[in-house]
C-alpha cells in the first residue's frame, strides 16, 4: 500500500499509547505544534492490556488543560486503529489535519516561548 497522508504530520513512534503522558503532550504544544493526536490500537486489543484506554483518559484530561489554557480542547484527539488498517491511518491523518487547519495555527507558535 502506498497511501498518502498530509506531509505536515510528524509521526512520533512510541511502544504503546500508554507511554504518552500528559506532560509529553503539553511539551509538544510548548514547542509550537498546532495539534496532537494519538493513534492507538483498537480498544480491547492493547498488547499491554490497558495502555490505549489509559491514553484515552489522558487525552480527555489534556483536553481540559488545553481548554483552561485557552488553546481549546479540539487540538488534541485520540484515534484507534489496528496496524493492518493502513487506509484508516491515512484517513485519520487527513481528518485531523483538516480539523486543525480549521482551528488555525496555535497561538503559541506565533510568539516563541
Amino acid at each position: 500500500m502506498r497511501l498518502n497522508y498530509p506531509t505536515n504530520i510528524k509521526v512520533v513512534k512510541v511502544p504503546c499509547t500508554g507511554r504518552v503522558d500528559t506532560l509529553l503532550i503539553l511539551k509538544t504544544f510548548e514547542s509550537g505544534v498546532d495539534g496532537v493526536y494519538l493513534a492507538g490500537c483498537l480498544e480491547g486489543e492493547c498488547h499491554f492490556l490497558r495502555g490505549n484506554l489509559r491514553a484515552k483518559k489522558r487525552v480527555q484530561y489534556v483536553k481540559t488543560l488545553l481548554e483552561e489554557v485557552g488553546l481549546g480542547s479540539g487540538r488534541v484527539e485520540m484515534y484507534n486503529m489496528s496496524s493492518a488498517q493502513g487506509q484508516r491511518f491515512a484517513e485519520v491523518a487527513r481528518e485531523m489535519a483538516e480539523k486543525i487547519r480549521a482551528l488555525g495555527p496555535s497561538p503559541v507558535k506565533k510568539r516563541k516561548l
Partner: protein
Amino acid sequence: MIVADRKSLDEILKMLKPYKKVLLLGCNECVTVSATGGEREVGVLASELKLSRAKDGQEIEIREQTLERQCDHEYIDQIRPFVGDYEVVLSMACGAGIQYLAETYKDKTVLPAVNTTFLGVTLEQGVWSERCQGCGECVLHMTGGICPIARCAKSLLNGPCGGSSNGKCEVDKDLECGWQLIIDRLKALNQMEKYEEIIPIKDWRTSRDGGPRKRIREDLKL
C-alpha cells in the same frame, strides 16, 4: 495523608499577573501521593502557565523544583541560594508547607497553587476520601474505628440524626451516613454495648477551637 486540590489555572494566573520570574515549588510527600503538587503536577502547571502566557504574548520564566518536604527547615533551606532570583514563589504543597515557606523567606511573596482539603486515604488509584479532622481527642475506640467527626456531616457524637435514611446522609443522597456505618460495624464486631454508651460533650479546645496546636517532645529537642 493530606489531600489537596489544584486551584484553577484562572485563579493562579490572576495571582501571578504582576510577575515574570516564578519559582514553582512542589512537595514530595502527601501532595505527591494525592497527585496534586508533586514533581509531575509541577511540570503540568509550569507547562500550562508557559502556554497560557505565550498565547497572550507575555513572558514568564519558571524554575521548577520539588522539595522532599516543605514543612521542614532542612528542605526549605535548599532554595536559599536561588530564591532571590525570583520575584515570587508559587507553592504546590499543603497549607502548612506554603506557610512555612512564607515564614522562612520573610521578604518573599509566597502564593498557594492548591486548596488543601482533608486528611484522608486512597480509595483506589485517583480517588481519595476524607477520614480524620484532627480533633485532638480520638474516639475511634468507641465507634468501631469509624470517625463520627469526619464522616458524619454534622460531626454528631451520638448519632444518627433523623436525616439518616437507607444508610444515606440527608445532606447528599450519595453520601453514606457515618453513623449508619458505625452501627453496622459495631454490630459486626458484636460491640453494640459501645453504641449504648453516651459519648459526653466534646471539649473542642483540643481541636481548632483552642487555637493553633503545638506538640513538644522535650527529649527530642536539641
